[in-house]
C-alpha cells in the first residue's frame, strides 16, 4: 500500500513523515520520531498508557490513525517540561511517590496536564474522574491523586506570583 504524508506539530516542532495508511499515532511517535515516552500497554484503548494531547484534547494514541493528526498539534510526555524545567505535576509525581514502575506515568501526567490546563483548581472527585481512563497496576492511585492536587496548588501559586 502506498504510504501517505503526514505533517503535524509535536511538542512545538514540526514533524513530517510518510506513514502506512492505518498506522497508529503511537507507532509513529515511538518508531519514527523516537518519542518513546509514550508507552503502549494494550493497543486496544483500555489502559491509557499511550495518552497524548491533540490540540489540547486528550486522546489514546494507540487508537488514533496518524493521518488524523495532519495539521494538528500534538503534546506528548516529552513536551510537558518547558525548557528543561519540570512542570509542577512532574515534580509532584517524583517527590510524592506517585510513580513506581513508571509505565503508566507518562499517560497519567499528560491526563493531569490536560485537566489542570483547563481547570486549575479541581476537586478531588474531578481529579479521580480525569485519570479514570488510566490504569496503574502498581496501585499508586492515592499518591497520584495527591500529587495532582498538590501540583494544582503549586501551579496556582506560580501563576499568581
Amino acid at each position: 500500500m502506498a504510504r501517505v504524508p503526514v505533517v503535524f506539530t509535536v511538542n512545538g516542532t514540526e514533524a513530517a513523515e510518510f506513514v502506512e495508511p492505518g498506522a497508529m499515532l503511537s507507532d509513529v511517535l515511538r518508531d519514527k520520531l523516537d518519542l518513546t515516552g509514550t508507552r503502549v500497554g494494550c493497543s486496544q484503548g483500555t489502559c491509557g498508557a499511550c495518552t497524548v494531547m491533540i490540540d489540547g484534547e486528550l486522546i489514546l494514541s494507540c487508537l488514533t490513525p496518524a493521518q488524523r493528526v495532519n495539521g494538528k498539534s500534538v503534546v506528548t510526555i516529552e513536551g510537558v517540561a518547558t525548557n528543561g524545567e519540570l512542570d509542577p505535576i512532574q515534580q509532584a509525581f517524583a517527590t510524592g511517590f506517585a510513580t513506581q514502575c513508571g509505565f503508566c506515568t507518562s499517560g497519567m501526567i499528560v491526563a493531569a496536564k490536560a485537566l489542570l490546563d483547563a481547570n486549575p483548581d479541581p476537586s478531588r472527585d474531578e481529579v479521580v474522574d480525569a485519570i479514570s481512563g488510566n490504569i496503574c497496576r502498581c496501585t499508586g492511585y492515592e499518591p497520584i491523586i495527591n500529587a495532582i492536587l498538590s501540583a494544582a496548588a503549586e501551579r496556582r501559586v506560580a501563576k499568581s506570583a
Partner: protein
Amino acid sequence: MEHIRKIFADERSDDHNAVGVSIERSDGLGHVTGKTQFYADRHYPGMLTLKMVRSPHHHAKILNVDTSAAEKMPGVVRVLTHADVPSNIYTILRLIQVEPNDEPVLAVDKVRFKGEAVVAVLAESEAIARDAVDAVRIDYEELPPVFDVEEALKPGAPLVNEYHGNNYFTYEGHHCRRVRYGDVEKGFAAADHVVEERYSSAPIEHAPVETTGCIVVPEANGRLTCYSNTQALFFTLDNAGLILNTPFQRLRLIGGTVGGGFGGKVDVITEPVAFLAADLTKRPVKFSYSREEEMQVSSPRAAERIYIKDGVMNDGRIVARQIRLYVDAGAYSRHSPYGTTKAAAHMPGPYTIPNVQVDAHCVYANRTPSSAMRGFGVTIGDFALEVQMDKIARLIGMDPMALRMLNAYRDGDAKAHGETTKGAALVEVMQEAAKLADWPLDGKYLSESSGKGG
C-alpha cells in the same frame, strides 16, 4: 519492644528514620519525563517481529503441522518448530535441582493448555507476522481435558503431563509435600471442638501495564544481547544457554527496567525462542506479548484449594491442625513445585500447635501454567488460616486477637517442620496493631512477649 531491640542489638541502631517518610526514587525523574528506557523503546534496523501460533484447544494431540503457506509469504523470514530448538524440553527450576524437565519451548506432539505455543513465525513487520500466524495449518485431535485439581487426582483422570506420569509433582517419592508432627488424630480426640472448613481461590493475573517481552540483537562478535523485562535475569540466561545448547558467555542479558512485574515476569518464556530466532536469522528479533497473550498465556498466581481441620479446646488452645492443600500448577511445573513446598512449610501459620499434619499437592491440569506472584505459596494459605482463626474465635466466643495471642509462637517453640522458633516478634506486632486499631486487648496480653516462655 525490649525483646525486639535485643534481637536486633548487633544489627542496627535505633535511629533509622526511613519508615513513614517518602524518599524520592532514583528512577523517578526518568519516569516523570518519559526518559526511562523500557526494553521496547529500542529500535534496530532490520528488526524482525516474532509471533506465536497458539493452540486453540485445552488438550489435544498434534497430528500435523503445515507451515509451507506461511513460509512462502513475502516478508516472512523464517518459521520455527520444535525441531529447530536444540534442547526443547526444560523446566525453569532445574537450575535448583527440580526435575523432571516437563515443558517444551515449542509443543512437540501434544498441547496441554489453551494458548500453548506450537510454531514461531518471524516476519519483517507485525502485520505480516500476524497474517503468517493465520496461514500456519495445524491438525489436532482433541483429548478430554481436566480442569479441577481434585478431579485431576482421581483414578482414570486424563493424564496432563506425561513427563510426570501422574497429575502431580512427586516429592521424594511422595504424591505431595508432607509435614508430620505429633498425632493429629489424638489431638482431635482430646479436643472440645473440631472445626473443619474448605477455602478456595481463583487464578489471579498480574496484568502489568507493560506486557512481557524482549529484544535480542546478534552482535558482530557472535554474541547475542537480550534486552528483557524479566524479573529473573540469571535464571533466564542459564536456561536460554541450556535450551540453545550454547556456552552461557555467548549470551548477554540486559534488564532492570520492568513495567510492572509482581512475580509475573519471572518465568523464562519469551527469551529462549527470541535468542534462537536471532541466532538463526542473524537479525534482531522482538517478541512482545499482546495484551491478549498477557491475559491468556502468561502465568497467573495459582488457584489453591485448602481444607483445614482444627481441634480446639474451650480455652482457645489449638491442639491439632490438619491441612490438605492443592496448588493448581496448570499444565507445567514452572515455579509451582517450589511454591507448594513453601505453602507446606508455612503451615500451620505462626502458631504453636502440638499436632500438625500437612499434605500439600502440586497438581497438573489443562490450565495456563501458574507461577510466582507476590508471596506465592503463602498468601492464599494465610487468607485461609486467618479466616479459620476468626471462625474459631466466634465459635468459642473468644476475642480473635486474644485467640491469636494465646496460640502465637514464642522463641524456643518447636515448629511443625522441625525448626526451632527464634527471632519471633508476632506478639509485639499484635500489641502495636491493637494499639493502632484501638482494639481493647485484655491487659494480660499487653505484658506478654515473643521471648522464650513469653
